[in-house]
């Protein structure tokens, strides 16, 4: 800041420290829990002095929860969702903001409505869709008795089953979650703040829409893209209900699901030390993404300073 405000500065730092402590306490506590053996962690209240079982518990968590392959699946899923959503919505928001066509408002509203019904609430019908992508076509096919037509053409009985299953596949994990408009909304908001002069200037220079997109919009959007990479990666990584339904094969499960295998339910032994250890491992990649990318927004922003 520009002037000297020592009192305000000290208060600022105090508030920040308090804030950081409150925010960090649950994690510190969890870390301590992972260092204790089961008798100590089940004790009430749990002792606040760390024990020596950290590596043991971590190792148990890794092997019991089969975390290796689950982490890989989560990574693929989260990356897929991130790339999918960002690319699709960059194009989508560009189309909505920078073109004037009849269906523009309809397109925006229909895309925006997807924010209203998150996947948890439409899960059964979405599952049926993913289990057989061609399902509705099968219905149509049967309705129109096209089996009969095909048989007539071929000269003998034909029964056609249209089936394209996305179960137990990365596509199935990723695609249904790309159908949500968070990124489009954000890009739309952002594009609306870009000064008209830039667009006018580009048009006057004879630039095509895509050139404007590539050379001006994209670089300006770097910060937002960075922020969205973080948001969507975290969103994809932390999905629970959807991956649980769509994957049967234990080798396709994601880390957050694998973690549930470790969390003690009402009927289990209270292995909180192992469970929290697993939780820490599963939490780590998105946290790392967040921490790594946050420096990038700053960089992007410094360049933006006009």
């Amino acid at each position, binding site marked *: 800041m520009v002037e000297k405000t020592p009192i305000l500065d000290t208060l600022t730092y105090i508030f920040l420290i308090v804030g950081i402590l409150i925010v960090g306490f649950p994690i510190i506590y969890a870390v301590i829990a992972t260092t204790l053996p089961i*008798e100590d962690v089940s004790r*009430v209240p749990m002792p606040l002095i760390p024990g020596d079982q950290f590596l043991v518990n971590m190792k148990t968590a890794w092997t019991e929860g089969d975390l290796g392959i689950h982490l890989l699946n989560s990574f693929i899923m989260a990356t897929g969702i991130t790339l999918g959503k960002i690319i699709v919505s960059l194009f989508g928001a560009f189309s909505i903001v920078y073109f004037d066509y009849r269906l523009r408002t309809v397109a925006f509203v229909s895309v925006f409505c997807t924010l209203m019904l998150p996947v948890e609430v439409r899960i059964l019908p979405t599952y049926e869709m993913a289990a057989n992508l061609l399902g509705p076509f099968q219905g149509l096919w049967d309705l129109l008795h096209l089996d009969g037509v095909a048989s007539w053409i071929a000269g003998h009985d034909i029964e056609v089953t249209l089936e394209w299953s996305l*179960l137990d596949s990365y596509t199935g994990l990723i695609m249904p979650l790309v159908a949500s408009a968070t990124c489009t909304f954000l890009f739309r908001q952002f594009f609306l703040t870009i000064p008209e002069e830039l667009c006018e200037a580009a048009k006057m220079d004879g630039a095509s829409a895509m050139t404007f997109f590539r050379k001006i919009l994209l670089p300006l959007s770097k910060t937002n893209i960075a922020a969205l990479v973080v948001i969507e990666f975290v969103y994809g990584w932390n999905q629970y209900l959807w991956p649980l*339904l769509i994957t049967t094969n234990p080798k396709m499960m994601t880390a957050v699901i694998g973690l549930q295998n470790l969390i003690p339910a*009402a009927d*289990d032994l209270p292995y909180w030390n192992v469970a929290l250890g697993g939780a820490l491992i599963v939490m780590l990649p998105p946290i790392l993404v967040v921490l790594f990318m946050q420096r990038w927004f700053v960089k992007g922003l410094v360049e933006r300073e006009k």
Partner: protein
Amino acid sequence: MKVRKIVVLCAVAVAVIFLSGQVMAEPVTINWWHAMKGARGKVVDTMIKAFNDSQSEYVVVGTYKGNYDETVNAGVAAYRARKQPHILQSFEVGTQTMMLSGAIYPVYKLMKDEGYNIDWKGYLQPVLSYYMNANGDLMSMPFNSSTPVMYYNVDLFKKAGLPMLDKETPITWDELGEITAKLLKSGVPGGMVTGWQSWTQVENYSAIHNIPFASKANGYEGLDCELLINNPKVVNHIAMLKDWFDDKRFVYGGQKYQGPKAEFIAQNVGVYIDSLSAIAKLKAGVKDFKWDVAPLPVESWMKNPQNSIIGGASLWVFKGHDKKDYKGVAAFLKHLSKPEMQIYWHKQTGYFPITLAAYEQLKKEGYYDEQPYQEVGVKQLTRRDPTIISRGLRLGYFIQIRNIINEELELVWNGKKTPQEAMDSAAARSNKQLREFEKTYQ
């Protein structure tokens, strides 16, 4: 010359591959979706492996699909998408829904069709009766069945000058009232705590005292049944618990996340009512005091208490697979009911062995002499033949009903409703659910 050699080698290779393909036919995969995770999941895996290793025609693949709700839901969703597994583990409260679904292949029929002549009398009747239809035919195979028992802290009892409890003859609720009062006097912060309050304090209470839980023989005989839990006896019991709550003889520990168990382990209470599957957890989690098991208390006016009812889950077989698959399914179910498997399952998890053969063998081995507390549950379950109202419950939307009962009980504990109001409300709300369910299947 060289070319010829290569061609011959290739031909031989192709022949070998082709022939071996014929000789070693691909084993048929049988999918089993279950809700057993962690330690129990490992036991399940061992039992599956034993089957797979014992023959080469079928390979059973067990998949953990989440907790009970999630597993059933996965099964339902899969069935609708025509991708159902062969076997689905469904908890006991889902029995009515599974039975009426039209999607299942009843176990008794499966075993008969596959040529197995099973003597169902050789099974523990109270366990089978929960999963039979009105004619006494078994619809699903019981897998993990437990019953509630009462755990108590031996050290705290000794300190309060209380005698040890008998493992077969239950004490009365009045006696429990005195015991908890003495515990409090000797310095323990609370008397008793209970888990699964609907199951232990309402369902089992009704069964043991031969009180109907719902009309139409607890729902077995018709979808037009109604809940009868707002009867004077049950309301009195809840009122008694509320009195105890007020003077700390009864502590409410919540429903999930081991609240009740944690209170017991922390020695904040001296008595803990819960499923007998808690034995394994107590064995691992309790290091600093001795504990023991006794049957649930009984009212003093009930001279010959009935059996308790089971909780847990059973295995349902889905329709829609190839005939040759079902041969494997039947063989697998038979394998699970073998005495060695039953004994292994019981020893590892505490769930009941479902066959009398297994039970007798365990007795002969002296297992119960070493660990008498393991037998408390079985004895309580089999102490009398079940009557038509103590054999179990067969209600639609039972999960919602249990939640309703839980909610209403919580409102009693925190003083917002009287026991009569709560039970009336629970019955009324549950009846609405039952009517919805009934209309669906008309």
